């Protein structure tokens, strides 16, 4: 069901499917142990029963409850709530806690994060009925998905989405090949800028990728040495292209990402001892 396309895949770990709130969430912990990263995907329909039946939806959504209530279109509304639930369930698995305990907040650029818990970074994407969530303990992560069949017009978008070097590489390709290459570059650029936290505010013609999509390149095609970044693109559910960008801040962060172990006992006790 999941086909890795090129490089980087080994370091990030293949995305896997989660089928709803009762999914085997231990797989998230296993992926985190192995790669420091976990990427899951699902379809919002698989969460519909949980959304409709969940008695604790309001506390579960937290600050997103108002947005959920305001959204009139039922499809948009259910997809929205499902995507938040997937994010919280995935994060909760890595944090060894309950989804309802988490406060999913948003940065200025719209990037989600878990308030008070900076041991993992999260990224969320949805397109059609697909929802994908990436979490990482080694640094920033960004995920982006598009339907594999989406045809981006090279003529219309090439100049705004691609660097001169990328255009030169895509120019000689046949139509179908070029569309696929362009879609992959688009999702990679989205994933990278989402990892940076800025969404589309970074001009897509201002940075590029090398030929196999595994490394960053300057607009003129010169490779940019960014050893700390890993990129990978996958085909999931047979019909979506999913790209992942992951930064390694290089601090060799603790493999323990549990929320309840992060406060240093010695410090807590020393402080607590002196309090009335």
């Amino acid at each position, binding site marked *: 069901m999941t086909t890795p396309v090129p490089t980087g895949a080994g370091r990030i770990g293949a995305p896997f499917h989660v089928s709803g709130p009762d999914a085997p969430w231990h797989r998230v912990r296993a992926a985190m142990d192995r790669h420091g990263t976990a990427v899951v995907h699902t379809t919002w329909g698989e969460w519909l029963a949980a959304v409709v039946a969940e008695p604790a939806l309001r506390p579960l959504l937290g600050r997103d409850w108002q947005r959920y209530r305001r959204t009139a279109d039922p499809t948009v509304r259910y997809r929205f709530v499902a995507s938040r639930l997937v994010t919280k369930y995935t994060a909760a698995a890595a944090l060894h806690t309950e989804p309802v305990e988490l*406060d999913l907040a948003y940065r200025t650029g719209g990037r989600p994060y878990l308030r*008070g818990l*900076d*041991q993992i970074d999260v990224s969320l994407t949805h397109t059609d009925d697909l929802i994908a969530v990436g979490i990482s303990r080694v640094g920033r992560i960004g995920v982006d998905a598009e339907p594999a069949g989406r045809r981006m017009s090279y003529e219309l978008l090439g100049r705004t989405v691609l660097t001169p070097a990328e255009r030169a590489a895509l120019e000689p390709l046949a139509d179908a090949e070029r569309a696929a290459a362009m879609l992959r570059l688009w999702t990679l650029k989205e994933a990278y800028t989402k990892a*940076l936290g800025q969404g589309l505010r970074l001009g897509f013609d201002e*940075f590029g990728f090398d030929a196999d999509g595994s490394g960053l390149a300057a607009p003129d095609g010169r490779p940019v040495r960014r050893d700390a970044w890993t990129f990978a693109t996958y085909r999931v559910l047979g019909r979506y292209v999913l790209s992942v960008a992951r930064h390694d801040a290089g601090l060799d962060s603790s493999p323990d990402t549990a929320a309840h172990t*992060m*406060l240093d006992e010695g410090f807590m006790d020393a402080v607590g001892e002196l309090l009335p």
Partner: protein
Amino acid sequence: MRTRRPVDATRELTNAAMTTTAETIHPPGTPSGRTAADAFARAARLEALLGDPYDPANPHGLRALFAADARRVPPAETESLLAGTGLGAEFVPAVHGGRLTRADLLVRALRPVFRRDVALGFGYGITSLFAAGAVWAAGDARQRQDVADLLLRGGRATILHHELAHANAILRHEFSARATARGYRLDGRKDVIINAARADLQVVYARTGTARGPRSHSVFLLDPRCAPPGSVRHLPRVELPGMRGALFSGLEFTGAPVPAGALVGGTGDGVGLALRVFQVNRSVICGLVTAAAGTVLDAAVRSAAGGRGATVTGRRRAPLAGVFADLLAADAMSMVVLRALSLLPDRAHLFAAAVKYVVPDLLREGLQELATVLGARGFDHAGPEHGALDKLVRDLPVAGLGHAGSASCQAVLVPQLRGLAERSWFAEDEPPSGLFRADGELPDLDYRLLGIAGGGDFMAASLVGSAARLAGARGAPGARGALAGLAEAFVTELRALREQCRRLPASGTALAGPAALVLADRYTGVVAAAAVLGVWESQDGTDPFLAGPAWAVLALSRLAGRIGVPVPTLPAGVQEEVLGELLRRQRAGLGYDLDAVAHTP
């Protein structure tokens, strides 16, 4: 009252220093002035010695510093220049012949180094202070004098941390010290210690008790030259992705004998000493890395406005103005906590943890916004202007210690929240106004007076006071009305926190769940806002921009957004005014912090 602007004083001194050589500036042991003007003067001399950061021919310029970083070596020429200025004296209290009087002045004096290169600042110098802190806090007379003499001679100290929860490479592993007939026996291994191979002094936080809890560790002061052969092994250099030029390597002790006299303070004092010393280190780091972020902002403005250009257009306006407001907020937080260490030493620990929790994150987010301004130019490693972004993105997580660093701050905040909600918030008196006035006199920093818990929350009290004084402007049009509304919104948030924190468990493992961590996060945003308001209120009008409400409105709007407090639309003109000041400072070569000192001569 400030009689002259630091900017003017600095310019004069910068010019004066141009004709001076490094050797004649700070003969070790020279008594130093205690005023802000004196610290500005020292900074100006350093600025002049380090020269124009953008001059490609300057051996201490950004191009040379970034080249050393790329080669993963410390910038030797610049290190020897700093050695010539007797920089080590900055880390030695004045009573022991050094120049350290107050933490806020220390930061001002060192900013010229950090705005060029954070790794140089850590690697050359500030690590010595972080290590020596335990000795200033609890060392006996002989230990204090020994460390002072060493640092004044240009020697270097390093710190061997104990392992903290969720430790990363720098905090992982620790040493143990077992009592013997003549002292202690030290064992253990740690792989990532800055300057491990070249430090003349090691301050070790070693485990001395088998039981967990607050008395588990003790601090020892070691002279590496005294270690018998075979008892210490130097491990290979470790290359981190950030601070690439800094020298990290490991040490392994095997039955190393440690004399009884090496113990700093009492047996079991280690964790308490760490808490006492860390609050200084945390506050100093925040003040210094804010200066480094200023360099990236400068690069972004130069890029967007085209050198000494007059204007910025389009999508670059909001991030530039926003990040400038963030830097002013970060500086407000840093300066207030650095001053609190002198003025309210028994109570500064809480705010120090909050500031260290907020500032690195605020700067990290700001760097990402600046990346959108710099765009493709951010990849231009060869150019010194644009390499600054890349370098600080790499260096900042090492300086701030990432998740383990923020978790260690939360460990200070979380146990105190319930007590603060029950007894302090909306009940305490405001702090003395001298806390916020940059030019106000303060007592010297005395590490021995620093508290580690309790003492209430002067920043929450200050927020409530600021909001009350602004209440008359609430609902008024324009920036002042917006500021009053934002102040009230933060007070409302504090009220909500009071209700929620009262329901936290008193202590124990139940406290260590996500709910308390979320509350601690929101709390830090509230006291960050208090610092901005306090600094804004303390302006005497000398600087019309800082006295005006625009920067505070923008800074508070962004802080409010961080913690989920509803943010009204910015009043017309706010962004324009902040951006206008940013461009003015860029054209005039002034810094992007509260001091606005002239940078390049």
